[in-house]
């Protein structure tokens, strides 16, 4: 995967598979501290300490369709090669939180990529989940919470063309309005 937003999508899928009802995503780009941070927090089934310790090992997965899990190990490796880290905190019955950080200006850092498509894919693709997405650009905050949107729509599908357009514009405009200037080339949406 060549974009951080694709990794974000992948980790958020783990949350859905862990039966999360609420997932909070945070993406922060800060040129002042030269850090890029992504946090995914869910209230899914969680993992015990032993599983958490092993979860970044490529030969561990909870899936049954194949025996190798590759999402977290790849991202951990990418973060560590960019003066960053990946941490997983989890508690059975409470949920899981994944934090990943990079040096923003590191030459090997993957581009963030199409963040809007990632968030839209999740919101549309898993309508039963309550999604909250926060974007921070040098501390300037944009929040997309899909609950008021769904309440406003009162049962009209998120996939109706006009709704799709509205959601896409809300998310991409919100990100663009807060993005640090030097980062704009990194995020097409």
């Amino acid at each position, binding site marked *: *995967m060549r974009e951080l937003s*694709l990794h974000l*999508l*992948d980790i958020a*899928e783990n949350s*859905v*598979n862990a039966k999360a009802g609420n997932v909070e995503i945070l993406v922060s780009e800060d040129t002042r501290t030269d850090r890029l941070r992504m946090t995914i927090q869910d209230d899914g089934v969680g993992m015990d300490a032993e599983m958490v310790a092993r979860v970044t090992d490529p030969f561990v997965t909870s*899936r049954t*369709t*194949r025996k190798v*899990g*590759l*999402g977290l190990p790849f991202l951990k490796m990418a973060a560590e090669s960019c003066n960053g880290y990946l941490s997983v905190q989890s508690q059975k019955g409470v949920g899981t939180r994944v934090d990943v950080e990079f040096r923003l200006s590191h030459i090997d850092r993957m581009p963030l990529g*199409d963040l809007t*498509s*990632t968030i*839209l*894919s*999740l919101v*549309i*693709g*898993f*309508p039963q989940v309550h999604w909250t997405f926060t974007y921070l650009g040098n501390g*300037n*905050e*944009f*929040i*997309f*919470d899909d609950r*008021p*949107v769904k309440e*406003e*729509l*009162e049962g*009209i*599908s998120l*996939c*109706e*063309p*006009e*709704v*799709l*357009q*509205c959601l*896409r*514009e*809300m998310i991409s405009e*919100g990100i663009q*309005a807060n993005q640090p200037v030097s980062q704009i080339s990194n995020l097409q949406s």
Partner: protein
Amino acid sequence: MPTIKNLDDLKRIREEALEKKKLKTASGNVQVVVGMGTCGIAAGARETMKAILDAIEKDNLSGISVTQTGCIGLCEREPIVMVTVGEEPKVTYGKVTPEVARRILKDHVGAGKVVEDHKIAM
């Protein structure tokens, strides 16, 4: 701090959508499911999903539900898309690039013709 600024837009959209629903009743519900496990994402499933959503938006296609699922164990044939039109049996497609996705929407969903060259026999 701009949070959701377009809720009023959504209210209007909702009313318009309700109007449209009244006009055409039961035009055959269409379900599209995109495989979005690690394998699917690595094979380009997000771009496939994007192509589907873009086509719905651009061609103003109403009544299509697009959702996601995880890995279904056919990783080597990702991106995988499953399509169910009304009461017809589900059709599973493999190697669905954005271009193939647009064909599926046009031929299968739009005209009832299954895109045979990407169909997976299940």
